[in-house]
C-alpha cells in the first residue's frame, strides 16, 4: 500500500472514531433518540474495505452502520442529522441510526434485522451481473448474523450465480452478551465459506492494512467475474453493544488486551515509524477531522425536526 493511501485510510478511521465519540457525547446530552450501536474499535474494517471501492460500488450495512456510511463517503453532517432524527438527515428522520442509507454513494442502507442485508447484497450483485457493469458489492455483517438462515441462503445464492459480492463478517466476538463460542463450535467463521464452495479467509480486523489488502484481492476477484468470497475480520468493540450496555459480561483481561490492539493507535504507530507522518502532521489531521465533525454535529443540532405530518409521506413511491 502506498503512503498517500495509508494516510487517507488513517484519516477515514479517525473520522469514524471521532464521529462516534461525538455521538457518544451527544447522547450523554440526551439529544440522540432511541438506541445507538457504536463502531468504536472496528474502524479498520469499514475503512480498509471501502478504500478499495469505487463510488459506484455498493455496500450493505447493519445496525452498527455509522462507520460503513462514513467509509463509503456519506456526508458526516447528513449522517449525524439522521442519527438525531432531523429533517436534514439522509432519510429525513424516518430511518435513524439503524436504518441509514445514502444511495448517492452506493450505501444501500442499514437494516436493523440481523442478517437481513445478506440476501439484499446478493440481489445488488445480481443486478450488477444482469446490467453487465463491473461494480462490486461489499456486504457487512456481524458474527451473530452468521447464524441466521439468511447468511446461508444469501451466500449460497451469490456463490451459485457467481455474483460480485464480498461478504465481510465483522467478528467482534460478541452478539450482544453472547460470545461466539456459545453459539458456534468453529473458531473461524471464514471456514463456513467451504459450505458454499467459495474462498474464505480470516484476517486481523484491527490491522487496517491487512484488511485493505485482503479486501483488495477479494474485490478484484469479484470485479473480474470470479464470484463472491467471505472475509472474516477479527475485531472487538470498545464499548457496550448499545446505548445502556455496560458490557460486564466480557472478562476484564480480554477487554484490556483488545483495547491495546486499538486499530487507530496501530496504524498511527506504523505511520510514525515509517515516517509517513510526523507528529505535527498527525496533529493537523486530528484538528481537521475534529473540525468537520464539530461542524457536522452543529449542523445536526441546528437542523429542525421534520414536521409531524411527514410521517404519512413516502409509504408508497
Amino acid at each position: 500500500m502506498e503512503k498517500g493511501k495509508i494516510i487517507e485510510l488513517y484519516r477515514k478511521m479517525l473520522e469514524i472514531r471521532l464521529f462516534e465519540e461525538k455521538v457518544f457525547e451527544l447522547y450523554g446530552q440526551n439529544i440522540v433518540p432511541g438506541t445507538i450501536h457504536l463502531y468504536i474499535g472496528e474502524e479498520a474494517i469499514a475503512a480498509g474495505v471501502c478504500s478499495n471501492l469505487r463510488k459506484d460500488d455498493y455496500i450493505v450495512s447493519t445496525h452498527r452502520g455509522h462507520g460503513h456510511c462514513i467509509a463509503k463517503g456519506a456526508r458526516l453532517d447528513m449522517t449525524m442529522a439522521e442519527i438525531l432524527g432531523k429533517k436534514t438527515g439522509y432519510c429525513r428522520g424516518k430511518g435513524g441510526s439503524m436504518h441509514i442509507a445514502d444511495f448517492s454513494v452506493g450505501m444501500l442502507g442499514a437494516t436493523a434485522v440481523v442478517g437481513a442485508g445478506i440476501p439484499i447484497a446478493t440481489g445488488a450483485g445480481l443486478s450488477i451481473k444482469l446490467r453487465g457493469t463491473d461494480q462490486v458489492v461489499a456486504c457487512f455483517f456481524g458474527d451473530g448474523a452468521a447464524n441466521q438462515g439468511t447468511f446461508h441462503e444469501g451466500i449460497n445464492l451469490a456463490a451459485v450465480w457467481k455474483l460480485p459480492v464480498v461478504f465481510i463478517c465483522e467478528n467482534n466476538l460478541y452478539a450482544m452478551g453472547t460470545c461466539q463460542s456459545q453459539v458456534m463450535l468453529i473458531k473461524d467463521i471464514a471456514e463456513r465459506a467451504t459450505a458454499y464452495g467459495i474462498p474464505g479467509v480470516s484476517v486481523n480486523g484491527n490491522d487496517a492494512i491487512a484488511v485493505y489488502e485482503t479486501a483488495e484481492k477479494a474485490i478484484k476477484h469479484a470485479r473480474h467475474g470470479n464470484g463472491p468470497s467471505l472475509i472474516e475480520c477479527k475485531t472487538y468493540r470498545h464499548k457496550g453493544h448499545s446505548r445502556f450496555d455496560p458490557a460486564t459480561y466480557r472478562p476484564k483481561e480480554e477487554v484490556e488486551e483488545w483495547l491495546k490492539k486499538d486499530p487507530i493507535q496501530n496504524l498511527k504507530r506504523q505511520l510514525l515509524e515509517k515516517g509517513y507522518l510526523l507528529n505535527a502532521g498527525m496533529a493537523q489531521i486530528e484538528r481537521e477531522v475534529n473540525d468537520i465533525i464539530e461542524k457536522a454535529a452543529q449542523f445536526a443540532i441546528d437542523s429542525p425536526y421534520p414536521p409531524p405530518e411527514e410521517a404519512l409521506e413516502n409509504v408508497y413511491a
Partner: protein
Amino acid sequence: MSMHNGDGKMRVITYRDAIREALLEEMKRDNTVFLLGEDIGRCWEGAFKVTKGLAEEFGDERVRDTPISESAIIGTAVGAAITGMKPIAEIMFGDLTTLAMDQIANQAAKIHYMFGAQAKVPLVIRTPFGGGVNIAAHHSQSLEAWFMHIPGLLVAVPSTAYDAKGLLKTAIQGSNPIIFCEHKLLYPTEGPVPEEDYTIPLGIADIKNEGEDLTIVATMFMVHKALNAARMLKKEGLGIEVVDPRTLVPLDKKTIIDSVKKTGRLVIAAEDCKTAGVTAEIAAMVAEEAIDYLDAPIRRVAEPDTPIPFSPPLEKYVIPDERRIIKTIREII
C-alpha cells in the same frame, strides 16, 4: 363481467396464460424485468406452468431457477430492485411466504419509507393461494390479509384472466412492491382478454354483476362462487350485486360503499380464515364509513378458523361454496 374499454379484438384464454402473457410482454418491453423462483425455468416451467416457454424465450439469465431459499429469493429480489432492476419473484406456494416474511414485510415494504424515499422497490411477488386440490395444510392457505396489514406493500387479487393480465402489467410497470395473489383453481379458468395492450389501474373495483337487493364483495375464486350464487338467486327475483375489489391495497372503498348505499345489505366472501381475515377489514371499513346505509347486519363468508384438512370431504366442508353464500344471503334478506 365488465367489458374492456378498447375496441380491439378479444380472445378467450386461461388465467394462467393471461399471467404468462403479461410476463412475456413486460419482459419484452423492459429488459430490466426478470424472473426468479424455484423451478420456474426450462426444466419445470413453474409448479403451475405459468412460466412455460419463458426461459426459452428470454434465456436462463432472465428466468432464473433458484435454490429452495425463499428468504433469499425475496431478499435478492429486493437488492436487485433497489439497484435498477425490476424483479418478479415467484414463491411456489403462498403458504411459503411465511419463510420470507422478514424480507417482504420489513425490507421490501419498508425500504422506501425508512430511507426517506431514496430508493424505490419495484418488486412483484407472484404466489398462488387457495385450497381445493387436496394438498392440505401447508399448501392451501389464503394469507392475503397478512399482506394487507403491511404498510408499503400493494396487494392484487385478480379473479379473471382479464383482470390478471391487466393488473400484473400495471404491477410490473409500477414502482412499489406488490404481492400478486393468484389462485390455484383459477389457473385453468378461461375468460376474454384483449389482443391489444392494456393495463388495469390498481384500486378500481369491478362490478362483476349488477343487482339492487344485496351486495356481495368477493375476491379471487370466491368471485365465481358469488356469481353462481347470484345467478341462482336471480331465478327467485333477487338482484345480487357482485363487487370484485381486484386489489385489496389500495382498496376501492368508494365502489363498495356506493354499492352498499344502493342495496343496503352486505355479504363479504373470501376464502381465507375468518378471524382477522380479508372479510374483517372490508366489514370494518363499511361499519365505520357507511353503517347508516345498512338495513341488516353485515355477514362474512369465509373459511372457519381451521387449518385446511387433507381428506376431500373435510376440505370441501371448510372451503366456502355457493351453498354457504346463498344460506348467508338468506339470513339477512
